[in-house]
Structures are given as structure tokens and as C-alpha cells.
């Protein structure tokens, strides 16, 4: 039975449709059982995330299975089926395998290389397993897709570089300080993004955290939220001298951190580097601060530029990942192809072996009192004959399956040798 995948994703359907179609887990169980109960699909997995709703299945008639699955889905979610039609895509066999591998490896994601999709796919697979709609084919497909995803993650840098401004700040800090354990962070002013950046730094081991603000109460509040220490606004200079990373995001109109104040702060540091992350607009840190030795200063545009470069880097890595996935698809199909012809080969062997054993027994019945050597010779010669006869057809079957034409040849062999239809 052919393998297929049908669905919509962020490229084919607008968010309004995707959010309407997305299914929560308990509904998913219901849906899996309903579709499976119709009998059009042999196996079934439904993947539903905010960027895609896809049905992976094994069915004799993939077109019909797709229609049935989405009819149920639309009925569940109250979506007009006809409106969905132009957004649906269907991939069969090799294309379905390729699609599954690319989705798992995050090559089909909106943000290439984002790590969530693999977990979502594993969840979808687990739910389907719990509903007993997973058979041997989808089991191999998904297991292999997870392996491919893992390989892509470890062998390429597709997910290595930060694609958000706050993570880009962390990445830069690591390029300066290596490990962030024990690096002191000073937060000047408050803002969503600076708080987020500080949180990421803390997650990487940065400690202690100092918070300063023109409003003392706000400094105390934020310090509590980040388990840091509030510092009076007037002590900004000494606080800078003790920090490794300074994140600024005040609403001030002028520069809060001047070249002079940084020079002063650097005086007693024995060339320990200082990293400014200036998220404020207008900028809090005087731009010429970045030219001081041992001082690195990134404003919001610089961080965005790093993010852009990282995205380009991800795309470059994605090309390598695509090649890797393509090789895996070929390998997978070869194995699947062999699996397709193996039952025919086995029954062919069994058939000839049955004939051989029967004929040998008949011959021996006509030769009572034959010495053991004669019996052995008969066994040997008959075995040799069937092996010689079988060699060409078995080779042909294996070759044809690798070339993608296994099915027609298994039919021919079954007809010729009267093997009976495969189940």
C-alpha cells in the first residue's frame, strides 16, 4: 500500500486557516479513530502545529484517503472543505518520505532550523501510537525521520546560530568571554528585550546581576524578578567598573554612558573586556565607546545585523542539510524496496524447496536400500539445481525493487511460479 502525506503549511495556507484547522491533543485522538474507522487508511499519523496540519498515512487510494481525512478534519473544526482544496498538497511514496524527513529536520519550517518541530512530530507520533493507528510502515518512516533530524542537527550548523536579537547578544557575549559562568551583568534601565537578554545570560550561568534605574522602586522590582541586586542610579560608574556585560535600555534622550565614564571604568580593570549591549533607541551608549581597547559595543542595529548574518548562515547550512536528507531518502527507499520484494523471494524459495523435497522423497522411494552416499548426492544435486535456477530471478527482483519497479516484477514472478497473491 502506498505511503502518502497530505496537508497544508505556512506556505500554502494563511495563518487564519491554519489556526482554524489546528487540532488539540484530545480532539486528535478522536479524529485519528474516526478516520481509521472508515477503513480507507491502513496506518495514520496526524501532525498539527501552528504552522502545519498534515496527515501521514498508508492507503490503497491516497487521493481518497486524503479526501476522507480532511473531510473529517473540516467537520471537526467547522471549516468549509472547498475553501481548503487549493491549499492542500499531497505527496506519495518517495516524495512523502522526502517530505517527512525535511519536516522533521526543520528544513520545511518557517524559520529554518527551529528545534520545536521535531518535538511536535514526536508527540504526534506518540499520540498515533497510543491510538494504535501506527503500523510497520509509518513506524519505520517516523523513526528514520527522527534519526535524520538528529543527524542534520549534529552534522550541520543549521540550528547553531541565534536568530533573535536577545540570543544574538548571548552569542556575542560567548564570543568574547567564552563561558558566561561568573560573568557579572549590569542592567541599566528596564525593557522587555533587555530583561529577556538578561534572562538568557543568567541561563548560561552569568552571575551576579546588578540592576539600576532612575526610579529606585523599578530597580528593586526588576532586581527581584531576576534575583539580582539593585544599584542606585548615581553608582552607575562604579557598577560598570565591576561588570562584564552591560545591557542598556533607558528611555533617556541623551547618552547615559559616555566615553569618559567608560574610560574611567576601564582604568582599574587590567584590560578585562567590557561588553555593551545597547538596546535603547535613541542609543544610551555613546558610539565612540566601542573604539576603546577591550570594549565591545553593539546597538540594536548591530544585533539585527548579526541576526541577519546568522540567518544567511543557516540557509547555507540548510543546503548541506538538504543534501544529507536526500541521501537518507535514497537509502530509505532502497531498504523499503527490498522489504517489498523479500516476501516474494521467500515464498519462491519455499515453493521450490517443497517441490525439491517431495521429488527427492519420491526418487528415494523407488530406490530402496540405496547407500547413504546416494541419498546425499541426490540432496546435493537437487539443491544445487534450484539454487542455480533461483539465482537469476532473485537478482532480478532485488534490482528491480531498487529501480522502483519491484511491484510489477513480484506480480510476474508470482504468476509464473503460482505463488498465490500476496496479502
Amino acid at each position, binding site marked *: 500500500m502506498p505511503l502518502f502525506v497530505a496537508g497544508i503549511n505556512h506556505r500554502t495556507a494563511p495563518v487564519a486557516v491554519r489556526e482554524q484547522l489546528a487540532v488539540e491533543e484530545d480532539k486528535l485522538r478522536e479524529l485519528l479513530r474516526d478516520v481509521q474507522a472508515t477503513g480507507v487508511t491502513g496506518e495514520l499519523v496526524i501532525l498539527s502545529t501552528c504552522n502545519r496540519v498534515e496527515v501521514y498515512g498508508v492507503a490503497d487510494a491516497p487521493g481518497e484517503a486524503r479526501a476522507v481525512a480532511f473531510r473529517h478534519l473540516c467537520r471537526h473544526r467547522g471549516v468549509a472543505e472547498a475553501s481548503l482544496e487549493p491549499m492542500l498538497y499531497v505527496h506519495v511514496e518517495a516524495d512523502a518520505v522526502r517530505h517527512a524527513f525535511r519536516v522533521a529536520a526543520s528544513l520545511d519550517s518557517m524559520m529554518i532550523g527551529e528545534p520545536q518541530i521535531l518535538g511536535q512530530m514526536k508527540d504526534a507520533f506518540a499520540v498515533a501510537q497510543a491510538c494504535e493507528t501506527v503500523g510497520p510502515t509509518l513506524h519505520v518512516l517516523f523513526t528514520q525521520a527522527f534519526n535524520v533530524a538528529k543527524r542534520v542537527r549534529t*552534522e550541520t*550548523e543549521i540550528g547553531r*546560530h541565534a536568530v533573535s536579537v536577545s540570543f544574538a547578544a548571548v552569542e*556575542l557575549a*560567548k*564570543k*568574547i*568571554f*567564552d*563561558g558566561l559562568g561568573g560573568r557579572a551583568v549590569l542592567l541599566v534601565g528596564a525593557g522587555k528585550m533587555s530583561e529577556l537578554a538578561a534572562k538568557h545570560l543568567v541561563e548560561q550561568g552569568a552571575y551576579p546581576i546588578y540592576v539600576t534605574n532612575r526610579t529606585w522602586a523599578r530597580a528593586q522590582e526588576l532586581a527581584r524578578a531576576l534575583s539580582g541586586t539593585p544599584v542606585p542610579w548615581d553608582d552607575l560608574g562604579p557598577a560598570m567598573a565591576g561588570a562584564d556585560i552591560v545591557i542598556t535600555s533607558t528611555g533617556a534622550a541623551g547618552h547615559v554612558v559616555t566615553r569618559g565614564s567608560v574610560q574611567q571604568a576601564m582604568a582599574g580593570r*587590567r*584590560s*578585562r*573586556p567590557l561588553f555593551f549591549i545597547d538596546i535603547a533607541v535613541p542609543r544610551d551608549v555613546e558610539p565612540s565607546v*566601542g*573604539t576603546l*581597547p*577591550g570594549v*565591545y559595543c*553593539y546597538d540594536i542595529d*548591530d544585533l539585527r*545585523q*548579526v541576526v541577519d*548574518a*546568522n540567518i544567511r*548562515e543557516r540557509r547555507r547550512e540548510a543546503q*548541506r542539510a538538504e543534501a544529507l536528507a536526500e541521501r537518507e531518502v535514497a537509502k530509505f527507499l532502497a531498504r523499503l524496496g527490498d522489504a517489498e520484494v523479500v516476501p516474494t523471494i521467500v515464498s519462491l524459495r519455499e515453493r521450490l524447496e517443497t517441490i525439491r523435497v517431495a521429488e527427492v522423497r519420491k526418487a528415494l522411494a523407488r530406490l530402496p536400500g540405496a547407500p547413504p552416499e546416494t541419498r546425499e548426492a541426490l540432496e546435493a544435486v537437487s539443491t544445487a539445481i534450484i539454487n542455480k535456477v533461483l539465482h537469476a530471478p532473485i537478482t532480478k527482483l532485488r534490482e528491480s525493487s531498487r529501480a522502483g519497479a519491484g511491484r510489477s516484477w513480484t506480480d510476474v514472478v508470482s504468476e509464473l511460479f503460482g505463488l498465490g497473491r500476496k496479502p
Partner: protein
Amino acid sequence: MHPTIFNLAVIGYICATGLALAYLVQREELIYRLADLATLAGWALHTLALVVLGVESGRPPLGSLPQAISMAVWVIVLLAMWAERQYGVKVLGAFVLPIVVLLSLKVAAGRPLGEITPTLRNAWIWVHIALALVGIAAFVLNFVGALMYLLQDWSLKHKRTGTFYYRLPSLATLDRLTYRTLALGFPFLTTGLILGALWAGSAWGSVFAFDPLALFSFLAWAIYAATLAGRAAAGWSGRRAAYFALVGFAALALTLGAGLFFPGRHGS
């Protein structure tokens, strides 16, 4: 026997250099592994060549300046393989191996055997040469570490997210590498130079004996001494320490250049 094996080793180093440079551009794990393998193969052949040379001539393979450089290259490669693993600097090869190839080609082009003069037949001379060599090898890595530091510093300062930004490790790591190699090389160079001076004093009656190599090496030593003092006492690090490493290496390169191109006691 020895030149053939040595030439094979050089071929190994050349292959490794090409692969290491390719790895800088194309981050493919396979290329790195091949570069690593070629380096190891080159080094193993080099080891064999040195052993054969030592056995054939019945003394340490340090009898002439080309031989000494060959030994220095051997130590450089060994140190580079160690530093690469210790500091996780997978692109180190791209910076060290070109120097290795340059030096070993110079050795390969030189006369195969310049026999050491009878006056030099003294156990101390071997110790002097060996210690100085290890020092020089450590300073080659010191130079490479400083170079990588300055490239990464430049990338971060000028916000250039190019090859160096992505491939080179953090400034902290590179600074540690330069400090460590400085601290390793300095005692070797110091002891090597003292032994050389003492020995020269007793053999020729004069400490320097107007030998260009000796003069330049004392200059290099003074620069490294200043850097080490600055780092240990005044807390220098980063860019300043890196610049000093470059200047020190320039003096060291002049030393080797003087030894190779100008006649002096060392050149014999």
C-alpha cells in the same frame, strides 16, 4: 633513506594544509577529519625520518640548522595537535600548517647533511639546541594564537560576521592559548639561551661571538620577557599581549632568517 621519508612527511603536511584551509571555508566535518589524519600521518612519517636520521648518524638529529628546524617543525606539529584538542580550536591547522610547510620546504631544499664541527662535540650543545627548539615551537603557536585573537577582535570590534567570526573561538579562549604558549615557551627559550651563552663563552671565549642568530634571539627573548612580566604582574591581556606576541615572533623569525641566510657560528 631519511630524505625520502622526510619528503613523504612534507607531502603529508602539504595535504593537511590544503584540507585545513578548505575547512576554514567549508565547515564539513569530513574535511576536518581528513586534515587531522593527514597531519597525523605527516607527523608519524616525520618522526620516523628523525629516528632514521638519528640512528644513521649515531647522534641526535640536530647536527645542522636545517636538521634543527626539522626538529622544531616536529615539535610545532605536536604542540598544534595538542592545542587543537585542548582548546577546541578546530581551525588552528589552517594557521599553523602553512608555517609548518614553509619551514619544512626550506629544510627539504637544504643540503641533506651539514656535519657539525668537532668543537661542538659536547653533550651540552644538544641540550642547548633541544631546549631552544621547544621554546621556538611554543612561540610559533603563541604567534598563531595572537594572530587569531586579533582577527576575532577585529571581527567583533567592526561587527564583521564573516568566516573568522563564525570559525574562530572566543577571545577568552584565544587569550588563554597565547598566555599558555608564552608561559610554556619562555622557560625553554631562557634555559636554552643561557646554556648557549655559557657554552659559547667557554668554547669561543666570548658570549655572543658576533653571531647574528644569537643577537636576534636575545632580542626576541627580551620582548617575550617583557610580555610575560606585563601579563603576570600588570595583568596585560587581550590586544596588547597579542601585539607583543607578534613583535616577539618577528624577532624570532629574524633570528631564524639570520641563521639560515647569514653566515655565523650557528650556520655551520
